[in-house]
């Protein structure tokens, strides 16, 4: 056995030696250079426990992710930050950060104006009530904006997931990019993986029943906004014209930020969907949130939703 095998050549990005412990941890993190990969192979050939040590580090990372992945931003703080975003439009001059924060807080607490003008206050309150009643009545009409009764948090989340789902779907329509992300090719493995991760059964197309109608391209981890763990599954169908149509299903534990009821399906209409020519649907089942992006035509859309085992009854947000 050569001295190299007893003490493999160390290397680090700056040329300084890296010991075996660091090599194993870096391997678990996917941070090895080509030279370091060779060193690791040499080490693994001599140490049968190396793979188990790398597995330990990977599991530790996932555990750290869970342990430190909470909590989400409190609603009151979120509302303040959103208000700050709106307030920043009015402030063009260079201002001290502390004053900007203070002014934002003051604006939300100031009552003097209303105390000084009771008639104005009453008129404003009446106007708000009338406006609210009109909005409530018009809420059932189809529109491409978020429902008017949404809180700022719900509006923000609605826009975020719409943007995310449509953009990420479009990105993964490129097979080359999708192959790098959607690395799990067995749908049973993917289902089991996410069901275990979420603590609840994930429902996906029954491929044995629908094998001739839909193809599973692959699945993998994803980063749906406001979730700690989420997944992305891509499916392909063939339209009557022979065109390949990709479908994306994003799954995650339901963060509860949209008022969806189990057993109903919702269409999330937004400008970003319209611009992309896609339709976005959402539903919740057993605590799992499903976001389904479909490029299928109106005629095919109901069929592909059925393939996804989506609810059939539509709800309104």
């Amino acid at each position: 056995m050569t001295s190299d095998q007893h003490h493999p050549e160390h290397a680090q990005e700056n040329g300084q030696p890296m010991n075996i412990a660091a090599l194993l941890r870096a391997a678990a993190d996917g941070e090895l250079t080509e030279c370091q990969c060779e060193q690791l192979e040499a080490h693994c050939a001599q140490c049968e426990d190396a793979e188990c040590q790398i597995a330990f580090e990977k599991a530790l990372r996932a555990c750290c992710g869970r342990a430190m992945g909470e909590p989400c931003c409190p609603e009151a703080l979120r509302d303040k930050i959103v208000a700050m975003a709106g307030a920043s439009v009015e402030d063009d001059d260079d201002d001290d950060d502390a004053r900007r924060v203070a002014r934002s807080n003051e604006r939300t607490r100031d009552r003097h104006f209303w105390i000084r003008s009771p008639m104005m206050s009453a008129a404003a309150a009446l106007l708000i009530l009338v406006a609210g009643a009109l909005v409530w009545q018009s809420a059932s009409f189809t529109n491409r904006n978020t429902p008017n009764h949404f809180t700022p948090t719900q509006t923000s989340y609605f826009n975020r997931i719409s943007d995310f789902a449509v953009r990420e779907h479009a990105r993964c329509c490129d097979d080359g990019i999708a192959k790098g992300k959607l690395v799990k090719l067995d749908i049973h493995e993917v289902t089991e993986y996410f069901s275990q991760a979420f603590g609840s059964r994930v429902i996906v197309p029954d491929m044995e029943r629908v094998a001739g109608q839909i193809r599973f391209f692959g699945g993998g981890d994803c980063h749906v906004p406001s979730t700690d763990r989420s997944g992305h599954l891509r499916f392909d169908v063939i339209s009557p014209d022979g065109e390949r149509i990709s479908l994306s299903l994003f799954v995650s534990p339901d963060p509860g930020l949209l008022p969806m009821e189990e057993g109903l399906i919702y269409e999330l209409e937004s400008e970003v969907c319209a611009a992309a020519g896609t339709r976005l649907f959402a539903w919740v089942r057993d605590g799992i949130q499903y976001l389904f992006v479909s490029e299928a035509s109106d005629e095919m859309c109901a069929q592909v939703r059925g393939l996804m085992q989506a609810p059939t009854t539509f709800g309104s947000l």
Partner: protein
Amino acid sequence: MERQKFEQLALEHLDAVYRMALHLSRRPEEADELVQEVYARAFRPQTIERFEDKSAPDDPTSGSGGMRSWLFAICHNVFYTRIKRQARQPMAVEEFFDESSSETLPDEVPPVWDRRDLDWEHVDGRLKSAIEDLKDEYREVLMLWGVDGLKYREIAEIVEVPIGTVMSRLHRARKLLADSLMSDESVVDDLGLRLLSSEPNKGMKG
């Protein structure tokens, strides 16, 4: 970048920024203030003008060079600027030597995990308390690595230290967490963990 788009993009990462603020400050009230200051700085007109989205064009969810990393960097700077202002105390000698040796990577190898069919969810609580005991700078890199999945280089850019220092802090933090798990017999038994001997021939074939 257009202001509205910038603000929308920035708000997408509010949860992540809050998490970082909370893990740094360890107090919700202080985390609140920290987040407000981060976004106050971020929403300055001159800041918006200067911001350049460096995330990879084919990966809009990447934090690398993008909005998320940028906000993290602000959070890091604001937090440590406050620390310097508030705590004007001489560094303890042992702390000084600790910091100066941070470039050395720990050489104790990770434990061996024999029962890879098991999940670790039941040790989350134990790990949480071990994480709470870590130094601020260890906890910070751990969070960026474990929760946000950032690469060493990305973390180095955010916390503005050399990549070797990131590796050192990260590896030390993981070593401390591993030690914490190994000190609990029930965890060791449940997960099937064991340590290799430090002798080079142990555990090697041939």
